[in-house]
């Protein structure tokens, strides 16, 4: 996070990650998802899986290349609560770097990446593309400072459902300081459209531990409300409430089949990328296994 330029920061994370791959036991995986479908007369024989045919004597087609290429949309929260940071950087800067890193990585793989930033409403939208200069524009949008007020996921998620018709990978990066019930409704709508959703839940270490020691007036960054608090007295209740909220979020993600990666912002970005890709790989394995199991009966 010491590098001021977002693109350089993302490149540094990704290249470090590539170098580390030599030592990684998980080499050879990819973000692309391969799928088979049964051959019907009229299909182009060029995409017939001859190996599968020789092994199982069944006609299956590999999916077309443009269908198998990944479409990914990064949904980045830029509400006022994301500007909080007890470290040398804020959650918003961490989220922007994470989004830029993912975008750069996916761009390197040849996948199309789009961006939607939001606070209480949609601020910027960049459709998923894989072309020269697209990554640059995406970085520029990510570099814009967070200026919104409240966090409201309803409007941006409804917006993305309306404009993205093709199934995509939706990566939501937010602190999710919203009630779990409306969030579940909105995520349900997203998954119902066939989109695969990955959640990056970012929290500042101070938000997790609430280790303040002086009784002062706390000001809500989103609403501007002032509350005089003695941290020693409210710490336990805060942690209890926070964990209950996190548990409810986990339950929502589990019900909807959403990968939820929770980071505190002190965690290195490489680890976040690694967790993400590992999750992708496991998901890919599960998909392959289910695909192979399905034709065998």
């Amino acid at each position, binding site marked *: 996070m010491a590098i001021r330029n977002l693109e350089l920061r993302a490149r540094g994370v990704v290249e470090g990650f590539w170098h580390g791959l030599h030592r990684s036991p998980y080499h050879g995986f990819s973000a692309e998802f391969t799928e088979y479908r049964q051959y019907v007369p009229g299909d182009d024989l060029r995409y017939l899986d001859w190996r599968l045919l020789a092994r199982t004597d069944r006609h299956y087609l590999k999916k077309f290349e443009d269908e198998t290429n990944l479409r990914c949309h990064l949904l980045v929260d830029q509400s006022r*609560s*994301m500007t*909080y940071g007890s470290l040398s950087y804020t*959650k918003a800067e961490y989220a922007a770097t994470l989004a830029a890193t993912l975008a750069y990585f996916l761009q390197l793989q040849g996948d199309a990446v789009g961006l939607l930033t939001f606070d209480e409403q949609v601020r910027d939208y960049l459709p998923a593309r894989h072309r020269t200069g697209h990554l640059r524009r995406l970085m520029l949008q990510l570099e814009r400072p967070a200026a919104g007020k409240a966090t409201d996921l309803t409007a941006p998620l409804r917006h993305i459902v309306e404009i993205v018709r093709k199934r995509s990978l939706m990566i939501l990066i937010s*602190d999710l*300081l919203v009630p779990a019930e409306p969030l579940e409704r909105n995520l349900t709508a997203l998954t119902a459209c066939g989109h695969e959703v990955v959640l990056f839940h970012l929290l*500042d270490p101070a*938000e997790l531990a609430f280790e*303040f020691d*002086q*009784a*002062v*007036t*706390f*000001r*809500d*960054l*989103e*609403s501007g*409300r*002032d*509350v*005089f*608090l*003695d941290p020693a*007295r*409210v710490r336990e*209740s*805060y942690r209890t*409430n*926070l964990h209950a*909220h996190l548990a409810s979020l986990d339950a929502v993600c589990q019900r909807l089949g959403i990968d939820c990666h929770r980071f505190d912002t002190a965690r290195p970005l490489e680890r976040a990328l690694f967790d993400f890709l590992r999750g992708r790989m496991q998901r890919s394995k599960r998909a392959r296994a289910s695909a192979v199991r399905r034709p065998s009966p």
Partner: protein
Amino acid sequence: MSFLAPLFLLGSLAVALPILFHLIRQTSREHQPFSSLMFLRPSPPRLTRRSRLEDLLLLLLRGAILILLAGAFARPFFDQPIPVVPQVAPSRQTVVLVDTSASMRREGLWGAAVKSVEALLKRAGPQDEVAVFTFDRRTRSLVSFEQWKVAAVEERSALTLQRLAETKPGWAATHLGNALIAGAEALVEADRPAAGPVVRRIVVVSDLQEGSRLEGLEGYSWPKGVAVVVEPLKVKRPTNAGLQWVLDAGDTVPSANATPRVRVSNSADARQERFQLRWQNVTEASATEVYVPPGQSRVGSAPALPAGASDEILVLSGDDDAFDNTVWRVPVKAEDWTVLYLGKDAETDPSRPLYFLKRALQGGLHQTITLTAQPADAPLAAPELAAARMVIIADAPSSGDLGLIEERVNGGGTALWVLHDTGSVESLARLAGANGLTAEEAGGADYAMLGTIDFAHPLFTSFADPRYSDFTRVHFWKHRRLDAARLPGARVPARFDNGDPALIEVPKGKGRLLVLTAGWHPAESQLALSSKFVPLLYSMLEQAGPRNTAPAAYRVGDAVGLPAPSDGQGWAVRKPDGAEARLTVGATQFTEADLPGSYAASSGESRWRFAVNLDAAESRTAPRQLDELERLGVPLKPVPRPARSSLQPVQRRHQAELESRQKLWRWLILAAGSVLLVEIGLAGWVTRQRAMQTQPSA
């Protein structure tokens, strides 16, 4: 117990401040930004130990110190009766100057002036001396110091107010400077009281208008110890517009033939800008509108006047005050003067005197002059001679004519004998009634000039100004030397530089004979070609008979010069209000022109009319700046106002004396010091005790 400065007791409220500050909950002003308060509930801070009061005894001691100090500064004392020694108040000598000028005629001013004097008299004590003067152009004593002292104490005010009630504002100008000098002199000359101090002052009750004159104060050394208190009177309507004649050269009113011009001036703070001018008592004459912006004046022609109007009264309307809105003038017709020239000159001969005389006597606005030339040897007609204002004799007339001329001169006529040759001296001697008068030719290679001139003589008064008194450029090539001593009663107003008489005046009967010993034509002198010739001739003509030309423009209070009445009796002057004033026989100065308007003087067959107008300075009614008086050395004092209660200062002095005798504040300071010492000891003991308590635990 009472306090001399009770306000200092408020200082004891300072005791509450440290307690108050101590008990005020110190809420944090710092703000800790946080991403969201959705997991937090408000929790009030717990009171710490610091919020509780400690060391109550110390606090009480310190509070007592503050209270004692506040009490000491309040200077307490116990009320006691104190014998009051009566003191001798200084007596006052006051001169009250009451303005009675024309500007005081404005609405409400005179009433305010009387009230002001009344209030001043009420404040006067029995030991005070008051003199009341009224002033406008002159200062008059209404009540002198002697009259005040002679009157009984309880009657003094009534006497003064009664005399003031009989007085009204006049029409004269305001000479404030002269009035102040008169008041100061009256104070200086007044007898001082036998014992005790005395305060001498002049109280001016006036509207102090801008047009009041202070010239009298310039060069006057103001006496020491005399102060001036000005009580300016406020007028309801301060703006004003004034009307004056624009005078012709010579300070005379415009004649009947000339178009009269007037100046309309407007005050600086006026709201009106448009005024109307119209002739009074002339219904057919229309009004003329005049536009004068505030603070400016305009000169313009008066409305056209129908012929035949006897009194000419011009009235201005449209401003706040009408006291100065009327001007008068007396129409004067041009006079016909006839001059008889006896000589055999041709009018067209530029080398002869008649040629120059004809051109010099052209007449003017106020006169038409008819010059009749007649050869000296031609017989004179008696009516012609009687009609002539002056006879100029260039050649010796016949003996018969000489008798007629002598008769005319004795009857009041004037004859000018121009002595062109020595041959006619016998006829001159006969006319003058001189014996043994001889003449001889003077001058030769060198020229003569006028060396000695009596500028006080009526013939030369018009040359008295140094700008016109230079006669050295008039050279005389020839003249006749006459022994003036041989002429009975002769005066010599002008002599040549060699001592020979140049002009001789010989009184004869009721008239006079003037003898000029040199001619004015170029063969004898440069007189005809000089700028002195025409004024000298007109001066002779004006002196030759009664003037009926335009009189001077008189202002109220001016001394009006009247001509000598032809019948030798005294003038009777009828004033504008109908009153008649009689002058003594021989008196030609009328000094009772105290009203503006037309005056008519009559004495036998003689008639004389003149108009008196208001001084233009009275129209300048804006308030005068008082620093002008201070610049002229007049010490001004503020207007004294009566105290609300004379008891208060006495009581105050009484309390201060009691407090200074008792000096209770010293005891309070001592008590505060004692408590301070106790507090210091207690604080030290408490500190040591705490230190001892903390050491074992450490």
